[in-house]
C-alpha cells in the first residue's frame, strides 16, 4: 500500500523523470532549459525527502537558482534563429536511444538486483526526521571535525573518517580559478588591427 512516504517520493520522483525525459525530447533549447529547471527542483525535493535538507537547499539555491540562470543566460546569448532548434537525423536518435536504453537496462538491473537496496525493514520505525540538523555537522565536517563519527568505536573505521577541510579548500580555490578562467574565456576580445573585419569569423574556414 502506498504510504505517505511513498506518496511524496512519487510526487517528486515522477516529475523528475518526466521533466528529464522532456529535456531530451524537447527540440527547443529554451524549453529544454525550463524543463531542466523543473527536473532539478524536483530532485531537490527528493533530497529533502531523503533527509538531506541542507543539500536540498543547496540544490535549489545553487543549481536551480544559480547554474540554471547562468544556463539561461547562455541560451539567450547564443540562441539565434536557426540554432534555437537544431535537428538531428532519426538514425542518430535511434542510436542514442538504443545506447541509452541499453545503459538504462544495465543500470536498472544493477539497482534492482541487489537485495539490500530493495528491502526496507525499518520503514516506519525510523527515527524522526531531523531536518535542519544536518547543517551544523556538515559545516563542522567541512572544517575538518566529524561530529557524526564521535561515537564510532571501531578504530579501523574511524581511521577512514576524516574531515573535509582540505577538499573544501581545494574546491573553493578551484571554484575561484574556474570563475576567473570562465571570465577570461568569455570576455569580449578586442581586435588588434583595424583592418580585420569586426565580424566574428570562424577559425575554421570549412563549413
Amino acid at each position, binding site marked *: 500500500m502506498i504510504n505517505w512516504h511513498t506518496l511524496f517520493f512519487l510526487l517528486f520522483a515522477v516529475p523528475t523523470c518526466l521533466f528529464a525525459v522532456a529535456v531530451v525530447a524537447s527540440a527547443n533549447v529554451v524549453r529544454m532549459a525550463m524543463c531542466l529547471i523543473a527536473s532539478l527542483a524536483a530532485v531537490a525535493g527528493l533530497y529533502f525527502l531523503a533527509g538531506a535538507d541542507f543539500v536540498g537547499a543547496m540544490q535549489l539555491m545553487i543549481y536551480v537558482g544559480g547554474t540554471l540562470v547562468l544556463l539561461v543566460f547562455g541560451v539567450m546569448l547564443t540562441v539565434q534563429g536557426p540554432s534555437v532548434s537544431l535537428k*538531428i537525423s532519426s538514425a*542518430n536518435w535511434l*542510436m*542514442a536511444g538504443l*545506447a541509452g536504453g*541499453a*545503459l538504462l537496462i*544495465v543500470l536498472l538491473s544493477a539497482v534492482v538486483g541487489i537485495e539490500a537496496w530493495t528491502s526496507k525493514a525499518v520503514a516506519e520505525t525510523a527515527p524522526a526526521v531531523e531536518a535542519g540538523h544536518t547543517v551544523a555537522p556538515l559545516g563542522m565536517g567541512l572544517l575538518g571535525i566529524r561530529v557524526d563519527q564521535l561515537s564510532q568505536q571501531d578504530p579501523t573505521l574511524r581511521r577512514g573518517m576524516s574531515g573535509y577541510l582540505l577538499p573544501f579548500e581545494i574546491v573553493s580555490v578551484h571554484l575561484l580559478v574556474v570563475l576567473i578562467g570562465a571570465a577570461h574565456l568569455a570576455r569580449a576580445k578586442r581586435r588588434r588591427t583595424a583592418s580585420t573585419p569586426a565580424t566574428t569569423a570562424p577559425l575554421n574556414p570549412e563549413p
Partner: protein
Amino acid sequence: MELATLLPLLLLLAWLLPLASFTLIVFAGPRLGRAGHKAGYVATGAIGISLFLSLLALACWLWHHPLTPSHHAETHAAASDDPADPTHERSEHEQSAPHTGSTASPLTGDWYTLAEFGSLRLTIGYYIDALTLGMFVMVSLIATCIHVYSFGYMHEELEDVTDPLASPSSGKPLVRAGRFHRFFQYMSLFCFSMLGLVVAGNVAMVFVFWELVGICSYLLIGFYIERKSASTAANKAFIVNRVGDFGMIVGLMILFGALGTFSFGDVAQSDGTVRKGIFSQVRPAENEHQLIVPDGLIRMAAASQMNSIYASVPSNEEAEELIGRRVAELRKVGTGYWLLVLAGLGIFCGCVGKSAQFPLHVWLPDAMEGPTPVSALIHAATMVAAGVYLVGRFYPVFAPEVLLTIACVGCITLFVAATIAITATDIKRVLAYSTVSQLGYMMFSLGLGGWAAGLFHLFTHAFFKALLFLCSGSVIHACHTNEMPEMGGLRKKMPWTAWTMLVGCLAISGAGIPAMLGMKGFGLSGYYSKDSILAQAFSVASQSQTYGWLFYVAAGGAAITAFYMFRLWFMTFAGSPRNQHVYDHAHESPASMYVPLVILAFFAVVAGWKLPSLNLPDLLEQARPLGTAEGISFAGEIAHPELPAEHRSHEETLHRTVSWIAFGTALTGFAIAVLFYLLRIFNPETVRKWLAPLHAFLIHKWFFDELYEYAFVKPTLLLSQVAAAFDRLVIDRLADGSARFCVTVARLDDVIDRYVVDWAANGIGRLTYRIGLWLRQVQTGQLRQYVVMIAVSTVALFLLIVVCRNLMLFQ
C-alpha cells in the same frame, strides 16, 4: 801513529786529491785563469801531492818492513851456493814465508760501506802491501811527469784550435774552442780512478774503478770529439773492455755467490769479528796456504744435494753438520773445482779486456786517437797494466789451468802484437802494438808462475813505455804527423827527444851486458825484467817439454821487439829527412816536455837496478802472496802443467844461459833493423814485395778487426734489427691485429644493428603508425558520437563482466 792507521790515511788522501781536483775543475774549469790554464796547475798539484804522499807511505812501509835481500840477490852474490839445496830452500821458506806472513802482512780494512744485506756487503776498502805501495808510487810518479809534459803538449788547447782531422761537410777545417781544462779534468779523474783501482781492498771495488778508468779512457780517447775516428775508437775501447768485464762479472758472481765476500784479505769488522777474505778461503792457513776449493764453491756446485740434505733433516744445525761432512767428501772427488777455474777465467777475462790481450787486443791501437800524453799514461803505463796488476793481485785464486790459459794468451798476444808492429808506420801504433806485446810478456810470465818477474816487468815497462810515448808525442808535436815515412833525421833537430827515446828503445829491447867472466850482468831496466821472464819460461820449458814452445815464442818475440823498436828510432831520427817540409818545421819541444822525458829516462835506466835497501824485485818478493812461492805440479783433466817455483829461475846456470839467449835475440833484432833502416843494405820495399801476402796480413793486423766486424758487430746489429722488427712486425701486429679484429666485430655488429634490429624497431614503429591511422578514423570529432560511444562501451564492459563471470562460474 801506528802504521795500520797511518798508511790507509796517507793513501786515502793521495787517492782523493785527484778527485778533489776533478771536482774543482768541473765546476770552476773555464774560470781558472785564462782559458782555464790554471786547471793544469790544480791537477798537477794534486797528483804531485799524491806522489809525495805515496812516497811517504812507501817510506813508512819500508821503515817498518825493511826489504830482506831475496834469494835472487843471494844467489847472485854467492854463486857457489847451491840453490837446489833443499835445506837452503827450506830455510829460505821458513825465513821468508813466516816472516812476511807475520810482519809484512798486508793492511786491510774498509773505509766505507756502499750497501749491506745480511752478511753480504759491498764496501770500499783497502788492501795495502808492498805491491800496492809500489804501484801507487809508480802511477803517481808517471802521472806527475805526464801532467807536466801535458802543459807543453796541450798548449794549443789554450787557444781556439783548428782541427785538420775533423771533417765537417763544408770541407773547411773545423775551428773550435780549446779544451785545456777539460783535459786536466779527465786526467784528474783518471788518476783518482787508477789509484782507487790500485788501493782496492776487494774485487768489487776493483770492478768499480775498473769501469771508471774505462770511462776515463773513453773520454780521453775521444778527447778530439770532432773526429769520427776518435769517437769510434773510444766506443770501441769501452765496448771491448765491457766484453772483458762481462767475463769479470761472471767471475765475481761465482765468487760472491759462493763465498759471500769480495775482500781480498781478512777484514776486521767494527764489532770485533773478522770476515775471511777470498784469499784465506782459497788458501787457508790450515792448508799451508795451498790452493783448495773453498766450502762455498763445493756447496754451490752440489746445490741440489745441499737442498736435499736440508729437506731431509729437521733442524738446521744437523743439516749444517751433515753438509760439513758431505763437503769434505765432495772435496776429495773434486766437486766445485770447475767453478774455481771458471771464476779464475772470468776474472782473467776482465784482465784480457783491460790489458788488451788476445783476443780483445783490438782496441788498444785504435786508442791512440787520443792525445799522446793520454796514450803514455793510460794506454801504456798504468791503465792497461791494471789487468796485469789484477792478475798479480788475484794470483792466489787462480787454479793451474787458469794460469796455463793466462800463459798461452800472453804468449799468443806477445807474438801477434809484435808481428803487427813490424809493419805499422804510425809511430804511435808501433808503440801501441809494442805495448800489447809487452803486456803479453807480463801475462805470460804470470801464467808461468813468474809472479815477481811479470810484475817487475810491469814496473819497468811503465817507465820506459811512458818515456817512449812521450818521446813520440814530442816528435808528433814537432812534426804534426804520426807517419814515420814522413820523418827521418830528426835527431839533429830534437836531440833531447832523440836520445831519451834511444834510452827507451834500449830499455824495451832489454839492452845489457850478460854476466860473463865472473862479472855480474848489467843493463837497463828492461834487461832485468825481460831476463827474469825468459828465465822463468826457460825454467818451465826445461821441466816440461810440452810447454817448451812458449819459451821459443817469447824469445823470438824479444828479437822482434828489438827490431821494430830500432826500426822506429832509425826511421824517425836517423838518416836523412824524407819530407823536407816536415823536417824544416820540426823543433825541439819546450822544457816542460823534455824535462819529464829526462826523468823518465832516468827511471827507465835505473828501475831494474838492485840497490841494497830499495829495489823492485825485493819489494815484489815481499809482496808475494802467501803460498805461491812453491812450484805447481798438477795433473788436471785437460792439462798437466808443471810450473816450477820462481826462485828456480834465479839459478846461476839457468839464468846465465837465458841472459845470453836474450842478449842474442835482441842483438839479432837490432842487427836486422840496422841493416834495413840505418845502413840500408837491404831495401825494405824489396822484402815487402817478396812477402806481399804476409805483409798484407800483417798490415791488416791479422784481420782481427774485419773478423770481429763480421763475427760480432754485424750479427749484433742484425739481431737488434730483428728484435726491433719483431716488435714492429709481430708483437705490434698482434696488438694491432687484435684491435682490428675488435673493430671488425664492431662493424659486423653495426650491420646487424642496422639491418636486423633497426629494421624490426622501425617495422614496429610503422605498424603502430598504420594502426594509429586506422584507429584515428574512430576519432570523428563528433561530440555526440563520443557520448554514445561511452555509453555503449559502458554497457559493453558490463556485459563483458557478466559474461566473464558466468564463464568462470561455469568452470
